[in-house]
């Protein structure tokens, strides 16, 4: 028939599969039109006789192939890092796996096949036909990843529109704690929507298959109808056009009425199918994420970076332009600005003026079952006028050890222990800390239930030769003084390898987190002056303004004098046993 016009470099998807954690396909969708294009381009390229085209696998075939691959790759999940035999059970495949097969050109597939089958020791960076070049050449991969995320959100029910939180919940620290679980910061930093501990898809997936892990949410039945509707509307022919789930749902639910007139002189954007009607108002939200590393050492400067987002929710009738200046920006420190595609240009800030907390935390294992620790914290250091620290709590979690007893008294506040954590409330709710800085200390020892020295054969490393049953340790310890590093190593030995998405994944054994809430000012100093917001065509609308600030505070310090003596030149991270997080100071400025 007709020649096939291979359209530049769009994004089309041949098929979607969703597998559950039993490795069964629970949902699949194929796009015959895209498949036909793929077949056509294969036929156009069959100059060399290799069999490029194969029809799509059936669901059961796919499940088998996937299972095979999953077992082959283990926990590394194709992150580009070779792990010869990841032990089964150590992987972190989620509840659902979403496979998206994007349309690529035959030459891409061939290039990838070559890449996979190279006989040598590994790809050198920046070579021809390297993976990076392929990704650059294939917007369909990018699109497929977006689709995967959108579908993942639907599966997990995480489809809330980034809604502005107008007023902060009073126990926001607790909320955050419960969400992040015992370890780790969620790598997924959706700016406003509540963070869900989840892992994101691999960056090194096969072209033609992108997988994403569903978040660790309870077993929620798959809403196939919702999925089907979403897919049919967002990509009726396999070419995605709009992945905004809430828009699609609203349209399906409400449809449009004949009275719903389009704007008179503008084209209504495709990403905004409905125009606002009702009480007009404007709401600005500033979200800040503060990454702070406090080293407590002269030779290493602390690093603090603030990133964030300003959302403007304009509940205005029609399609007016909204413009506003932002104050408090220091251009010299500004690194990066991104905009929603509806925005023309504006600015965003990044500057940290002060830190509400400084200090250090030491935990030193004096024996296998006993640790001595010391906290020393300065609160509200460099105090700034309008801020109030509403509460401040330090938690030392020991997820793998059972606490038997705790000995020690803090200079301020109260201490309570649970089976796996120690909680130190420095500033309690209702007795906010305003107008002064204080220093608090908390020395003590914590005793754990005896360590079960499991010599897990399964925990042997993939290089696994070393872990033989030599009784070196005993002998060395007997002849030597207690070798702390060795001890730590031993205690940490059975911890599972960390997730690649975790920045502080090592030493998960000993860390503490700090939660506090600050009210009164943004850290960056960025602000939107409600009076300067202008709307064209002019509308009178109230402007609201809120700030949210989330802290990732990393503190580290000396571990023990003993260690210092034995290795005078040890580096900072030797002693990294602490990371903390403090969160969310919110304030509301109502106009």
């Amino acid at each position, binding site marked *: 028939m007709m020649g096939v016009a291979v359209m530049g470099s769009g994004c089309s998807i041949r098929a979607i599969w969703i597998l559950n954690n039993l490795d069964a396909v629970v949902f699949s969708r194929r796009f015959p039109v895209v498949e036909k294009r793929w077949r056509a381009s294969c036929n156009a390229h069959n100059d060399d006789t290799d069999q490029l085209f194969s029809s799509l696998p059936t669901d059961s075939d796919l499940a088998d192939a996937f299972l095979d691959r999953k077992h082959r790759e283990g926990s590394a999940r194709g992150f580009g890092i070779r792990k010869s035999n990841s032990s089964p059970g150590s992987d972190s495949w989620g509840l659902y796996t979403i496979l998206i097969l994007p349309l690529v050109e035959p030459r891409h597939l061939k290039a990838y096949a070559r890449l996979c089958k190279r006989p040598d020791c590994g790809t050198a960076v920046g070579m021809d036909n390297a993976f990076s070049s392929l990704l650059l050449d294939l*917007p369909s991969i990018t699109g497929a990843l977006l689709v995967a995320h959108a579908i993942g959100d639907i599966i997990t029910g995480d489809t809330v529109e980034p809604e502005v939180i107008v007023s902060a919940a009073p126990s926001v620290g607790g909320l955050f704690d419960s969400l992040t679980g015992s370890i780790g910061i969620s790598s997924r930093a959706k700016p406003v929507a509540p963070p869900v501990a989840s892992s994101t898809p691999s960056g090194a997936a096969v072209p033609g298959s992108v997988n994403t892990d569903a978040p660790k949410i309870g077993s929620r039945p798959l809403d196939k109808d919702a999925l089907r509707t979403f897919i049919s509307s967002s990509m009726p022919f396999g070419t995605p056009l709009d992945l905004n789930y809430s828009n699609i749902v609203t349209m399906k639910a409400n449809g449009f009425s004949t009275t719903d007139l389009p704007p008179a002189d503008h084209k209504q954007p495709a990403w905004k199918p409905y125009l606002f009607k009702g009480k007009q108002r404007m709401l600005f939200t500033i979200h800040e994420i503060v990454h702070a590393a406090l080293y407590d050492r002269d030779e290493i400067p602390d690093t603090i970076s603030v990133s964030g987002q300003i959302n403007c929710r304009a509940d205005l009738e029609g399609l007016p332009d909204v413009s506003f200046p932002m104050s408090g920006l220091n251009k010299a420190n500004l690194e990066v600005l991104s905009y929603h595609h509806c925005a023309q240009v504006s600015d965003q800030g990044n500057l940290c003026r002060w830190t509400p907390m400084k200090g250090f935390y030491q935990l030193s294992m004096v024996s296998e079952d006993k640790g001595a620790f010391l906290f020393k914290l300065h609160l509200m250091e460099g105090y700034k006028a309008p801020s109030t620290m509403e509460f401040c709590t330090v938690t030392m979690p020991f997820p793998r050890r059972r606490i038997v007893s705790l000995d020690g008294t803090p200079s301020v506040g109260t201490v309570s222990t649970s089976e796996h954590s120690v909680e130190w409330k420095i500033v309690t709710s209702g007795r906010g800390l305003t107008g002064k800085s204080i220093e608090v200390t908390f020395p003590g020892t914590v005793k754990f239930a005896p360590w079960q020295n499991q010599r897990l054969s399964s925990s042997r490393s993939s290089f696994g030769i070393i872990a033989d049953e030599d009784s070196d340790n005993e002998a060395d310890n007997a002849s030597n003084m207690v070798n702390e590093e060795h001890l730590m190593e031993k205690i940490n030995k059975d911890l599972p390898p960390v997730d690649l998405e975790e920045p502080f994944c090592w030493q998960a054994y000993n860390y503490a987190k700090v939660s506090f809430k600050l009210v009164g000012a943004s850290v960056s100093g960025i602000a939107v002056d409600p009076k300067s917001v202008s709307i064209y065509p002019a509308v009178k609308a109230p402007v609201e303004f809120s700030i949210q600030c989330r802290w990732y505070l990393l503190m580290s310090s000396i571990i023990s004098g003993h260690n210092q003596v034995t290795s005078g030149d040890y580096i900072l991270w030797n002693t990294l046993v602490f990371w903390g997080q403090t969160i969310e100071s919110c304030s509301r400025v109502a106009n």
Partner: protein
Amino acid sequence: MPGADVEWPSKPLTVQEWETLIDDFHNGVHRKWNSLDPLFDLLLSSLFRKEFPLSLKLQLLLFLDEFSLSFFSTHHHFHRLVDALRAVLHAPPDVAAPAFKEQFMVSATSILICASEEVAVEAQTENNLVELLLTVINRPNFGSDRQARGIACECLRELERWKPGLLSDVVGHLWSLCQNERTHASQCYLLLFTSVIHSIVTRKLSVSILNTSVPVVPFNAPQCVAGSGSVSGSDLGSGLKVKELRRAMAFLLEWPQVMTPLGMMEFVSMIIPVAVALELQPSMLKVQFFGMIHSYDPILCHVVLCMYLRFLDAFDGQEGELSRRLLLISRETQHYLVFRLLAIHWLLGFNRLVLGKAKPSLELCSTFYPSLFDPLALKALKLDLLVFVLRLKGGDSDELVDPVKLFEDGLVCVSSFKWLPPGSSETVVAFRTFHKFLIASSSHSDNDPSTTRNLLDSMIFRTLQGLLVNLMLESRRLVPVVSAFVDRLLSCQKHSWLGECLLQKFDGHLLPKVTMDYKLAYCFPIFDRIAENQTIPPRGLLELLTNFMIFLVENHGPDTGMKSWSHGSRALGICRTMLMHHHSSRLFLRLSHLLAFTCLYFPDLEVRDSSRIYLRMLVCIPGKKLKDILNLGDMILGISPSSHPTSFFNVQSPRPSQKFKTFKNLSSCIHLERVAPLLVKQFWSLSLSNLVLSTSKPAYLESIRDLDPPVEEKEFSDSADTQIIPETGRINQPQEPLRVMDSKVAEILNTLRKYFSYVPDFRYMPGLKVRISCSLRFESSNFRRMLGIDKTTTSLEEIDALPAIYATVLKFSSSAPYGSIPSYRIPFLLGEPHNKDPSSQNASLSIVPVGVENDSREEGKYRATVVIDLEPREPTPGIVDVHIETNAENGQIIEGQLKGITVGIEDMFLKAIVPSDIPEDEIPRYYFDLFNTLWEACGSSSSTGRETFQLKGGKGIAAISGTQSVKLLDIPATSLIQATERHLAHFVVGVSGEPLIDAIWEGGIIQNVIWEDASPDATSVTNHDTAPLCLTYNDEQYEKGAISNSRKRNLGCFHVLIFLPPRFHLLFQMEVGDVSTLVRIRTDHWPSLAYIDDYLEALYLS
């Protein structure tokens, strides 16, 4: 319902049945179905059943779409489908929900596009579908069905994509629709219009896009589409109406902000080729779209990148900005990780493309460093970025960026603070980065110009070497990771030398620094790699291991039993690796010291044993075979040697019993042969014991008696087959010992007493031994055939291809009185090459002169020397039976009988024992005197017959009962002398007669004897010429006798003293004449006379 038959072929399916059916199809069931016709009808009717829920109907539509190839077999099906669609579209919303209408449009379009490939579709059906869709979209800004219109636009766009130019006739209408549409569906209108423009441009259709004269409905496919496919676009018109198209473009470019990011992607992918075809200024696009790079949406960023790649020139100068922006996207913590990673990948790919244009500035490089809060995957990728920078810098001399600093600083984030446990992901990332840095400046492509030298000299390599050495010294738990790293390099053809260099470095720098303690075992994986590598002299490692063994031995205590065992075994494992990979000669000295030390002093028995085995292997088995045998153990067990150091214990695994096999025809390929062949080829044995069955063995046949009074001797008759004629008969022995002795007799007795007191009594002590040297060999080809190995190797000369036998044990037995014969062990023997077989076979059949066979050193390695130690009770010929037990390479045990070894009388010839108090220089004299004494004692007139002589140890006694005989040898003196020199030189104790002495003296072979030239007269030599000759029975013999008389005129006389174990003697007095020689023989063991005749004939006459 229109088009649907009222007669259903079967009853309608329920909701559940449909769902099950759909699942079955997804799992591949439909392939079994031949005709889906009835199902099609059912399906179509189900779509219109009111009681069916909307979701099922949508599902059915998708189902029909996904499996359209199965359902649509005739054009009627399409016809009915389009009719059904029309009905649905016209139905009021309460009958057909908007979602149903939309999906129906999509599915019908999709089905038409896909199934038309297999089944011809009537043009009218197609037109009907397009017409229906056009009707839908032809109501811009209509409120309620805006979504449906948008979907219809998408359907039309798919159709247009399927048949480019399909909508070209109505493009004017589409444009005006576009201009008018203001709802959110405007994106779909814009995309539809763009797509038609795109096909017009790509097919170069000469249509006016302003022309609206052709009505939208009824729709007829334009000529360019309706015609046959062979009509190419260029034939269809005079050219593009560029001006109009540019206007259209200008219109389209006004509306990017209404699009969704993905819509934008579609849009840009279509307008780029249009812009190129219309020769639009790329800068126009740039102005319009470049701002999107600052968007939060990854798709929009990618759109900009695509555009950049398409218009490299137009975007000249923006590389820096793009790179920076991409890098910064990766730092936006709000993003999903995958998009942050993508940004880095884009940056890598992008930078590769713009390599020549803009090099990343130092400033930018500094931002490549992974930051503290980056997820590890991102850190890894950023490290790649650093490697990339290094690669860029590779050719440059400007050291804006110090590679080592780059390397070290970059690694801080994953390793430098502290080496985490080997299993940790950080460590994995660090080593991944090492690898990337290392191979950064040498790709795998063959035409890579970078040389080995470049790489070796590179600072990175040196830094990394040092880093790894220190790493292993500090954190031995990471050694396995290092060895895996080295393995990775070694396994790569291009970079294996890098791995080797690393190992060499380790050999030089790590080995001297490691501390000698129990933790050394952690380093064993790397030692194993070093041991495997032939480029590294094993010296250093062997020294270290030796010291380690000493350490283990010294530190062994009550608590270290297991440790000693484990460490010792693993150290031996490394030795084994060396044995497998190095030439034995290279290792021999140090390794044998190590092994010897271990098997002597190591506290653990098993280690000692293993060590002993290895030592023995090292000493006995040559190179290749040794490697094979060491390998074999692993192959059987399926364990690779390096990963499991314990596996070497299993070399000594129990042997499977089925491998035990006895071979009957073993002697056809395995040969045990005498080194020196017997002179007497024909073998016979005088077997006396059978003749005296009834009585106890006669005393005189007992070589040695106890000190009791001798029992009466008994008569016996000569054996019938004796060839020698006892011409003198038995010497009558006096019954009583002599009581009176003259001085001469006394002297004789004294001499003999002294002499016999040195002869060992084999009954109480080790007897005198007779050694027979043999050689063992086997034929490769026959051997293989016998074992059933059907391997016909062509490379005959290769030692590797030859079979070998291991741990061979030869066991000997004999019916002759040779005592117990110790078995003989041969650790290793190689088969003879095939081409040697024929000659060897010949050699085994005929006796080849001794010198010829032994001179070939080459053959030496195919032959093993075997010494058979006999301890004869009686000097008699016999046959030694040989039993072999050996192991083939495949572990098969071979057992069987070989051809016996013939023992001749000459094998019994020994030199007489010399008492220890005889000085060295008087030995000849002693021998000569002994000869004379024994000659006397064995003579007929002997007066010593009654005497008994105590043997060594004092328990046994021996008596001499002599016999004598003569033999005439008709050979010339020269021959005789030669033969004597060759075979009897050892036993000659005296030569008399000047001519004879002269003849012998020069040869120098017979030495250290008594030369009696004082009596030149030959007649004086003997007193026995009066003795009757036996050779006068007929004329001939008489003549010979006459001739023999002429000896008197001749030469001289040999005195030959031969000791026959256990205590007998053979004495020759050879009167040498010119043409014949008379040998007078005396012996105290008369049965040996039977063999001597043959022997002398073989010696002299053959």
